[in-house]
């Protein structure tokens, strides 16, 4: 993935509620220009979301295309209770998950070395090290943002997916379990390991230097 998270790049924000209603009416009327505007306005953000879930650029683009086609078919059912962007966001997440399900799963790399090690008596092998700053401050640094995105991508797929659904998409455990076809307990265990592994990947780049 080429680091195109939602926080990068230029471009505009979504229009007002009145703009949304007008756009929706044009879409429902089948206006070609309205569809093109919609795709141009939202495809970048949707591609960024799909890339988080899918390591292959081709799969990410396919997911965005599938999502738009699904959205076009469901336009009449869109109630307008949420923003178009929120609706499209949900659809592209589902399209990306569908893509993950239909692909043959590759053997995953172990994350054990990223988890804390313990001595026989249960103490940590190495004491945890404080970070130089809090998350809010670190997130303002481009090199940290790039590193965090790359670290999320680096997680094996089953861990990355659960972390994205729970911590980024903020779905609850049961919904995540349903979408991934695993038990709630498996979601909890995997999420904990995914967060620990992500922490292990980020730490060397943000740890407080020795005085």
């Amino acid at each position, binding site marked *: 993935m080429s680091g195109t*998270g939602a926080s990068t790049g*230029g471009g505009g924000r979504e229009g007002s509620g009145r703009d949304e209603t007008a756009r929706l009416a044009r879409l429902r009327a089948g206006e070609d220009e309205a569809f093109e505007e919609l795709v141009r306005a939202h495809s970048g953000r949707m591609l960024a979301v799909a890339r988080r879930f899918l390591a292959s650029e081709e799969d990410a683009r396919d997911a965005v295309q599938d999502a738009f086609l699904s959205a076009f078919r469901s336009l009449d059912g869109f109630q307008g209770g949420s923003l178009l962007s929120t609706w499209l966001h949900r659809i592209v997440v589902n399209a990306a998950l569908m893509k993950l399900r239909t692909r043959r799963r590759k053997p995953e790399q172990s994350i054990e070395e990223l988890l804390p090690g313990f001595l026989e008596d249960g103490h940590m092998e190495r004491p945890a090290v404080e970070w130089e700053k809090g*998350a809010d401050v*670190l997130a303002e640094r481009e090199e940290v943002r790039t590193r965090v995105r790359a670290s999320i991508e680096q997680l094996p797929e089953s861990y990355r997916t659960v972390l994205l659904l729970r911590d980024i998409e903020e779905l609850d455990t049961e919904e995540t379990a349903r979408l991934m076809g695993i038990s709630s307990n498996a979601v909890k265990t995997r999420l904990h390991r995914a967060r620990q592994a992500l922490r292990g990947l980020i730490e060397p780049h943000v740890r407080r230097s020795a005085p």
Partner: protein
Amino acid sequence: MTCREFVDFLVEYLEGTLPEPRRETFEGHMHECPSCVTYLDTYRETVRLGKAVCADPEGPVPEDVPDPLVRAILAARRGSDAD
């Protein structure tokens, strides 16, 4: 409580679902083990950092939208309309 157990119970503690008296034991371990306190803090910061970096659905649009993708979507729509 050992550090290993502390890490095992960390999620339940953060979610407020760790039952007494285990919660008390968990917090007791925090008083005697600065490393586990740091681990808990940085674990929590990891989650916050991930959210801060990724979660901005209303943020600016990335600039690198491939034009062929846009054209493919629009062509596919026209194709599906024609079906």
